[in-house]
């Protein structure tokens, strides 16, 4: 997939992206390209700026400088509704303020891109609330949500919540999904299953996923971008990343690699600083 994708022009491109928060440079010249249909994992130590980069792309942080392009067009040239339609964001912590059912959540997600007065400023128009004649039943089946539609979101298990949120973000068919540690609070079995769901849903959606678990990144991502101190240090295929030895440098830990049926896996070994 990587070889084929790389031949096309990127879906999204970040160049010299800078963000200053509380007089501290959080992003210090991020450069990154995301290609259609790929799963690009964003890894790096805490405080490297991963979440901030996602928020700039998702239209949540607006005080950035530099350049973000979507399909060759500056992000700032997009009307807010159109940007919202194309780029969906899954936050690290999600807690709706009201007791919404899964169906409510999906219905609100379907209306992604409406303006402040609930009008649609984009073409094709955003379907009206309650419109059930959408083509998203495939998505609901893929995510095994058809039986959960009437359940309250708050009553779902962690794995079910992750799936419901994924559907909420994908139901309006964005071209880029940004996910901030979608599996952070799940047990290993559900982490694995959620990553499999993610993979299954992303046939025509590019995704930039912040992951803490390097092994899941190695197993499921097409490419990995390593971030440290507000910059992308290396971005490449999994083999490139492993061969570069950059992980040891960035995380300050020496990793041992082990062969597994799906490729090489990592275990943090000796503390490199000690």
């Amino acid at each position, binding site marked *: 997939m990587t070889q084929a994708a790389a031949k096309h022009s990127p879906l999204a491109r970040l160049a010299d992206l800078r963000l200053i928060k509380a007089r501290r440079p959080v992003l210090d010249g991020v450069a990154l390209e995301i290609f259609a249909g790929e799963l690009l994992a964003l890894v790096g130590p805490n405080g490297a700026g991963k979440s901030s980069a996602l928020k700039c792309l998702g239209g949540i942080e607006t005080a950035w400088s530099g350049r973000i392009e979507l399909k060759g067009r500056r992000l700032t040239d997009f009307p807010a509704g159109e940007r919202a339609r194309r780029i969906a964001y899954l936050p690290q912590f999600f807690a709706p303020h*009201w007791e*919404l059912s899964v169906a409510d959540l999906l219905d609100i997600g379907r*209306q992604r891109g409406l303006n*402040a007065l609930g009008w649609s400023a984009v073409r094709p128009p955003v379907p009206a609330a309650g419109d059930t004649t959408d083509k998203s039943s495939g998505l609901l089946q893929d995510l095994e949500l058809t039986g959960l539609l009437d359940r309250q979101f708050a009553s779902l298990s962690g794995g079910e919540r992750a799936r419901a949120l994924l559907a909420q973000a994908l139901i309006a068919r964005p071209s880029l999904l940004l996910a901030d540690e979608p599996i952070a609070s799940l047990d290993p079995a559900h982490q694995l299953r959620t990553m499999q769901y993610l993979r299954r849903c992303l046939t025509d959606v590019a995704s930039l996923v912040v992951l803490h678990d390097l092994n899941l990144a190695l197993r499921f991502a097409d490419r990995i971008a390593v971030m440290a101190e507000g910059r992308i240090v290396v971005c490449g295929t999994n083999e490139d990343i492993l061969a570069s030895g950059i992980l040891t440098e960035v995380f300050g830990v020496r990793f041992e690699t082990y062969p597994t049926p799906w490729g090489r896996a990592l275990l943090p070994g000796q503390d490199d600083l000690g």
Partner: protein
Amino acid sequence: MMLGPELLGPGRLLDLLRPAASDHPLDRLLFEWRLPRVLTAFMVGGLLGAAGAIFQGIFRNPLADPFLIGTAPGAALGATLALLVPGLALFQAVSPLLLLPILSFLGAFGATLGVLLLARLARVRDTAGLLLAGVAMAAFLGALRSYLMLALTDETISLQVVLSWTLGGIQTPFWRELGYVALACLLLLAFARRLAHGLDVLGLGDDVARNMGLPVERFVVMATLLASALVALAVTWGGTIGFVGLIVPHLVRWTLGPRHAPLILTSALVGGILLTLLDGLARSLLPPAEIPLGLLTALIGAPFFMLILARRSRQ
């Protein structure tokens, strides 16, 4: 229509509504006084119900109420100014339909925005902090109003009028005024319905709302403007009637769920019905005196508020 110092049975009421009975004194009472008053009570209740639903959506908090967060006290302060400040009172006498609502609106909007800013400056995110900011604002504005009342009333201006605002009581407009109020109500409700999507999205959190294309700050100011207009109109015609904006959206949410489109419209309907009934009771429980409506709603609303708090703390 049946309720009042003189109770009318359904049969008697129908008799009076027939054109043949038109020279009966009770007939005049019905058409000049009771019917406009019933309609006004319905509209004031509807405005408060819808405003409560919007405020709860803006504050993302089921305990937000126009009275607890300072909006209605702000509107009451504006109304007091319109009635008592000599120059303004003169203008009020000339054009009663404009000045009172406008000053109430400015008071309502200023107070709500003040509470929102206060909460933001203090980085308050939880229910208690937000309500405390509202309570502080309400206490301050209430004190300011009391001071104005003491300082500015004399024999020429009746304290009675201002007091009726404080305690809450439906005014009886002329039919022409009623028409304007009804028109304003319909326009405001139509606009309120348009906010439903934004309020739904806002309930998912600021980050998700921004990503979904909602300009959060601008939307909050816009929704606050509109809800303040609803409250100002309600306060102009009904004085400060507490708890309707709290109870009604709550009841509706229990039955219809938290989506704002049905919530806002149904809250308006239920609020209208509730206040019409309560106003009827207020007029007929202690004849010939009228019980201040705000007193009745507080008697019912305050225990309800405690019930909600108890439920929340159990969760």
